[in-house]
């Protein structure tokens, strides 16, 4: 047979496609699917959480707590504040488990509600509290989180989401890390709503314990006017609503429910 050299035109083995367009379409669809799954997960968790028993939660807390709280807690201060918490809890709330308070000697101005009923208060916040009412507000706020099982919501969704994404992409994939970052931001924005309901709960507790809500408003006026202007940044990135917003909300709620102001009970001297 004769050989006739001929060239074929075009390359049949390579499809002419724009790589960038393909990338955008695929990545876009993937993000859309993840978003839908996330929303569905949210609904599922909303349905499951109320049925989670406090005993189970306490059992989980035994493993979680030592890692989160760390070894330094101010035991003496914690013991001093516990009676106040007990009083508030007994008379003014119907929480299904017993809350304990732990003070951590860190200068952060924050308080956390941890699984199992532990309220962690940082001494930075404690130093700024001027009266018992204000402290009661902070404690009431954290108890509000427990009452609404907020801490479980945040944890639950995040954990399940990471589990799915790890199953799909493997533990070390870049996509996983991206997902983790994106996850944190939106979790924070959900917890702002939770923060507001915890604020309302705290107001109710204050009103029940002292007959008025004077402490709450003065506390926030103080914090809002304080030198912590770094909290005035983009509110999406911080987990609590900005202080002026929060103050506004508290005032509105108080007006709505007829809570007034009154005499503040001073703190015990050594705090």
């Amino acid at each position, binding site marked *: *047979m004769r*050989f006739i*050299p001929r*060239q074929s035109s075009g*390359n049949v*083995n*390579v*499809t002419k*496609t724009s*790589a*960038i367009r*393909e*990338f955008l379409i*695929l*990545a876009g*669809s*993937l993000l859309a699917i993840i978003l839908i799954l996330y929303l569905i997960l949210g609904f599922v968790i909303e349905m499951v959480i109320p049925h989670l028993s406090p005993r189970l939660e306490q059992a989980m807390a035994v493993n979680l707590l030592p890692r989160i709280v760390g070894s330094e807690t101010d035991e003496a201060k914690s013991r001093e504040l516990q009676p106040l918490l007990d009083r508030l809890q007994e008379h003014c709330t119907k929480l299904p488990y017993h809350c304990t308070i732990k003070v951590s000697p860190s200068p952060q101005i924050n308080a956390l509600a941890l699984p199992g009923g532990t309220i962690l208060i940082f001494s930075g916040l404690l130093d700024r509290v001027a009266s018992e009412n204000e402290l009661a507000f902070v404690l009431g706020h954290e108890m509000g989180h427990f009452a609404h099982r907020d801490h479980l919501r945040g944890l639950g969704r995040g954990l399940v989401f990471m589990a799915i994404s790890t199953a*799909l*992409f493997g533990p070390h*994939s*870049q*996509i996983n*890390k*991206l997902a983790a*970052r994106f996850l944190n931001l939106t979790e924070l924005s959900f917890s702002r709503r939770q923060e507001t309901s915890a604020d309302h709960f705290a107001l109710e507790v204050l009103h029940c314990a002292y007959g008025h809500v004077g402490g709450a408003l003065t506390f926030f006026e103080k914090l809002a006017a304080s030198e912590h202007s770094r909290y005035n940044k983009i509110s999406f990135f911080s987990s609590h609503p900005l202080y002026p917003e929060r103050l506004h909300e508290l005032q509105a709620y108080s007006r709505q429910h007829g809570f007034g102001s009154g005499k503040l009970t001073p703190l015990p001297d050594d705090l």
Partner: protein
Amino acid sequence: MGDLVFFLILLGMGYGVGTWTEKRHYRSIMEREEQLLHLPAITAKKVELDNSKVERAVLVVGSAVISVDYFKRLLAGLRNIFGGTVKSYETLLDRARREALLRMKEKAHGASMIINVRIETSTIGKRAFKGKLGSIEAIAYGTAIKMNS
């Protein structure tokens, strides 16, 4: 945030440099294919040869290893979720094979044809063992027949 920026930089580099290298390679391949068009490389074994005129028959081998860039790998990963043709790897394999064939032809100096050509492809590299793509190796081999002029 730093991680994300780094990731995007790698992606951009992969896409930019990868596409440029690919175009350059294809140009070189098409040039050489035109030059070597006169030398047939076929898979057939039995060719009508005048046995007396054959000077020698020698095995010629050409091989090429082409690596995949970051952008292509990410695209393939996405494709793996949705299914379908992995278009980003097509160019890779195409280039590797054509390059291997050309190198085989270049080794056969003065031959009038190369018969019984076979082409094998495999993946090599550290990642290949984990199932991910490291690089693609293509090897083309055949018997080059040199005739007495």
